[in-house]
């Protein structure tokens, strides 16, 4: 207890030091006075009494020092002194300090920014209770990676799988949300009642729906925190209110917490805003609809059940349900499997983040090397001072401690600045992230990230300052003192260390340059890929007609016709069309098909993308016709079925023959679907991003839905009621947005348009990930280059300053200024050549890590290597040019005088 008390009073003493010192002086004075008084009483003269008092007291300064040592925390006091010393050193050379701090701030800042992404996406737990037990389960079809289930299988899995404590099915959907100022499209999910208990998340308000309510097809909705905030201003009495979805009234029963997001979509724009009961209809459960794998399931593993065991159990159920497949899909083979939810959520981002993190670590490494070089140069300059101090009895430990402290002060300042940079970067860059980055909302600067940054600063500070300190001390005392004498090139003993650091810096910069070169080449190659259509001057808009108001083909036809009619009469519009799938924007549907004349026994499942079109779609998006004809207004429900295929499909299905006039139907041979005749061949369009492979494609007229589902469907809805309106405009397409909106509003004022944008923008979204990677890597490479320049400059300039006298002597002996400059340039060039060599070698060794990110570019493309090395050479030349000119203009007299 009293020890603790003593510790605190020692601590307090530090902050009241002058007061304590004054008090001590006063006490000693009074003591001496009393002593003196006593001696005076013994009859000694005043002066002698004073001396006697002093003698009896002992050394006043010694007593003071003893008092100080006793009252204070000795180590604390010493540390404070070291700090003061370090501060003085830093203040003494502001240029040096600022360079070091900025270098570290840059390194730590970028690393922290990327780490905050990793923290948000990969490290933070999913917003569910015990997320490690959650898996997605479903079927693999063929070689596909996506796990889907059919509507019927939701029941099968729920009843027959034994590895799970609970499970539920879901499907994503969009709804037209009306009642606001403008009708809008909201993303939503249909859930079976099992999903909420499986995820283990409670609503913050109200409740979730029960199995009974789901089975009774009640119109209930649980809304998201965002919707509750934006649309209902956090009304605490929201439960019981109604919400109009697809022009049908639903009752709001609950609000989910802010962090809750399900399904885990990539990108925040598709986040589900509300959740409604799945309530599968008899049609959805019918055998006709059995081939739709558009549903998903989430499940919670029972305690102690491993993922492989659960996968086995799932496959057992899958084989069982495969035996009971209805005739229409009996040829399809499935394999049941599970994926941990977390793995699924981050799979798109993992490799990208790993690469990014490697890139920033490399930049940080370069930054550290740079700082080490700078500190080393300084330590060498101060070697004489160290030698003197050591000779006077300073401990080696104290000097190393001092230098580490100085490094720490610099690196922590750099770290704090880095955090600021990272925070700023996050604020501005978050919306630049590609949509494919999952869990974007959980990315933030938080305690973990800041701790990470500070630890990083601590580690770099110690690492950067230890090596130079040891290097500077590892010199023979006498030698150093002697070496401090003016002649000679001084830091010869550490030239090796300096050069190694700079050579590795150059090597790493060259590696980053080659990587970014490869990325840039990939991007360039991707942009050069022909999309197969002309996206310029095209405006697109998504829509979905609600089934209540558009219950039959006739009403959908009426809408389509009216839309085409209104829009084609707008001034400035060249062509108008409607399609179910846009090219080059990753949203196409695919189906199997059966070619006429191929025996059923030889049939195998192959997918082709398909879209239905209406109006002048091909001209609107600019897909060129190769042979035959486009669809016309005469291709109606009553006329013979026609299709248009792309070149790939024509070549693939009818090799060496003319495809026009050939027939095929959708689905497998057992399906009694009608044959459709190929009337045209069009160019291949990219179904997704330009760097992804093409696909077989076919198109059908919207008015001939029986190609797709076989049914004649008079009076009911068989044709697609959602899709995209496409406009080719003579004016800039942005100017047509208002015309498009008002034309649609004049047909159906309640209809919501979704993603109204130019085709160029739609493509840019798809290509965002590659652009993002490329920009980021290029920025890193640029940073590395900038740091490498600083490093080369520092070392060359330093070696010049050490050789001032040598240079002066050479010049006195008749050396030309040009040859002096050459001498210096050669120093830089040697290091650069070596660094480039190692860098190129390293790039070859590490090239396999980036291969998967490249498109149509070889990782050993000599052009990239030559380019990177040339850039580095040039930069290095520039960096050593300044010291070289300075060396060449060395004043002859001054250095010689000091010899």
């Amino acid at each position: 207890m009293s020890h603790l008390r003593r510790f605190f009073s020692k601590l307090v003493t530090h902050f009241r030091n002058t007061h304590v010192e004054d008090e001590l002086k006063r006490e000693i004075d009074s003591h001496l006075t009393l002593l003196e008084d006593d001696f005076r009483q013994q009859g000694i003269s005043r002066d002698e009494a004073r001396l006697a008092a002093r003698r009896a007291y002992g050394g006043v300064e010694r007593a003071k020092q003893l008092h100080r040592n006793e009252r204070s925390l000795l180590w604390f006091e010493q540390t404070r002194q070291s700090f003061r010393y370090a501060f003085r050193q830093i203040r003494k050379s502001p240029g040096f300090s600022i360079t070091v701090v900025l270098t570290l701030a840059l390194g730590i800042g970028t690393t922290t920014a990327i780490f905050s992404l990793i923290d948000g996406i990969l490290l933070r737990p999913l917003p569910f209770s015990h997320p490690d037990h959650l898996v997605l389960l479903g079927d693999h079809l063929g070689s596909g990676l996506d796990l889907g289930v059919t509507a019927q299988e939701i029941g099968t899995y729920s009843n027959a799988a034994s590895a799970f404590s609970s499970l539920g099915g879901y499907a994503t959907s969009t709804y037209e949300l009306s009642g606001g100022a403008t009708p809008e499209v909201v993303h939503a999910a249909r859930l079976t009642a099992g999903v909420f208990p499986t995820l283990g998340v409670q609503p913050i308000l109200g409740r979730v729906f029960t199995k009974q309510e789901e089975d009774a097809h009640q119109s209930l909705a649980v809304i998201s925190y965002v919707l509750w905030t934006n649309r209902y201003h956090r009304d605490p009495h929201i439960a019981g209110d109604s919400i109009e979805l697809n022009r049908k009234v639903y009752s709001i029963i609950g609000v989910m917490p802010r962090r809750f997001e399900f399904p885990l979509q990539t990108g925040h724009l598709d986040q589900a805003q509300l959740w409604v009961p799945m309530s599968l209809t008899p049609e959805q459960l019918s055998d006709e609809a059995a081939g739709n794998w558009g549903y998903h399931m989430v499940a919670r593993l029972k305690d102690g059940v491993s993922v492989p065991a659960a996968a086995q159990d799932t496959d057992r159920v899958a084989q069982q349900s495969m035996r009971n497949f209805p005739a229409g899909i009996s040829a399809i083979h499935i394999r049941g499997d599970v994926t941990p939810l977390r793995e699924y959520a981050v799979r798109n981002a993992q490799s990208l983040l790993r690469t990014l993190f490697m890139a920033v670590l490399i930049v940080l490494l370069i930054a550290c090397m740079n700082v080490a070089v700078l500190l080393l140069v300084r330590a060498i300059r101060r070697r004489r001072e160290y030698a003197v101090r050591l000779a006077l009895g300073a401990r080696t430990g104290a000097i190393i401690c001092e230098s580490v402290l100085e490094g720490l002060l610099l690196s922590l300042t750099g770290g704090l600045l880095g955090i600021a940079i990272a925070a700023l970067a996050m604020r501005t860059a978050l919306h630049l992230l590609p949509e494919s980055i999952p869990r974007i909302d959980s990315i933030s600067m938080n305690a973990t990230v800041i701790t990470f940054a500070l630890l990083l600063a601590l580690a770099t500070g110690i690492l950067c300052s230890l090596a130079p300190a040891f290097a500077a001390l590892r010199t023979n005392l006498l030698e150093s003192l002697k070496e401090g004498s003016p002649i000679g090139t001084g830091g010869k003993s550490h030239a090796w260390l300096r050069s190694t650091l700079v050579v590795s810096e150059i090597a790493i910069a060259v590696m980053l340059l080659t990587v970014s070169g490869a990325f840039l080449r990939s991007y360039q190659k991707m942009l050069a890929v022909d999309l197969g259509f002309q996206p310029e001057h095209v405006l697109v808009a998504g829509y979905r007609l609600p089934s209540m108001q558009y219950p039959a083909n006739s009403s959908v036809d009426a809408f389509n016709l009216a839309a085409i009619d209104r829009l084609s009469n707008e001034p400035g519009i060249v062509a108008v069309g409607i399609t179910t799938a846009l090219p080059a924007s990753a949203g196409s549907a695919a189906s199997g098909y059966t070619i006429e004349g191929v025996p059923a026994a030889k049939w195998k499942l192959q997918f082709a993308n398909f879209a239905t079109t209406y109006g002048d779609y091909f001209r609107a998006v600019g897909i060129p016709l190769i042979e035959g004809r486009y669809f016309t207004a005469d291709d109606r429900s009553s006329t013979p079925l026609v299709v248009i295929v792309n070149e790939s499909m024509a070549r693939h299905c009818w090799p060496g023959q003319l495809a026009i006039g050939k027939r095929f139907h959708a689905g497998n041979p057992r399906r009694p679907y009608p044959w459709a005749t190929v009337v045209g061949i069009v160019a291949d369009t990219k179904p997704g991003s330009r760097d992804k492979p093409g696909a077989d494609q076919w198109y059908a007229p919207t008015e001939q839905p029986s190609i797709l589902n076989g049914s004649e469907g008079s009076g009911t809805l068989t044709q697609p009621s959602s899709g995209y309106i496409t406009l080719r405009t003579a004016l800039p397409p942005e100017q047509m947005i208002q015309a498009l909106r008002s034309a649609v509003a004049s047909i159906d004022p309640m209809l919501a348009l979704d993603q109204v944008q130019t085709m160029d923008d739609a493509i840019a979204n798809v290509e965002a990930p590659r652009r993002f990677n490329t920009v980021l890597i290029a920025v890193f490479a640029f940073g590395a280059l900038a740091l490498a320049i600083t490093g080369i400059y520092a070392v060359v300039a330093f070696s010049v300053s050490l050789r001032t006298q040598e240079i002066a002597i050479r010049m006195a002996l008749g050396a030309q200024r040009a040859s002096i400059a050459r001498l210096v340039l050669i120093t830089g060039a040697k290091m650069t050549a070596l660094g480039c060599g190692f860098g190129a070698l390293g790039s070859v060794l590490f090239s396999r890590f980036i291969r998967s990110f490249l498109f149509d570019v070889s990782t050993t493309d000599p052009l990239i290597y030559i380019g990177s090395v040339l850039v580095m050479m040039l930069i290095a030349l520039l960096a050593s040019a300044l010291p070289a000119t300075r060396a060449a203009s060395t004043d002859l007299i001054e250095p010689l005088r000091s010899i």
Partner: protein
Amino acid sequence: MPSGKTDSIQLLQGTLDLIVLRTLATMGPRHAYQIATRLQQISDRLLNLNQGTLYPALVRLEQYGWINGTWGQTENSREAKFYAITKSGEKALHVETMRWRKMADLVERLLTEEPH
């Protein structure tokens, strides 16, 4: 370690604290000079220490909270810092005294025990 040359003895670690506490406990508040004088008196000049060496002990005891210093006047109207023992100081004195006695007893027994 008998030096032979002088009678003065070296103070054992910690004993100075005990002596100061004991002095203040029996004599009431005293200033540093009085404590030093008292030390010399009772040690019969066996304990020869510079008066300044008392200061570390005083600051140590004060930081432990065992003594408390306040400024006051001597009979000759000189100002001086008077130290008084505190409650917890008395307790500590008791504990330290017991410990010292035990220690002294042990050492005494060790020294008087005759080898057989």
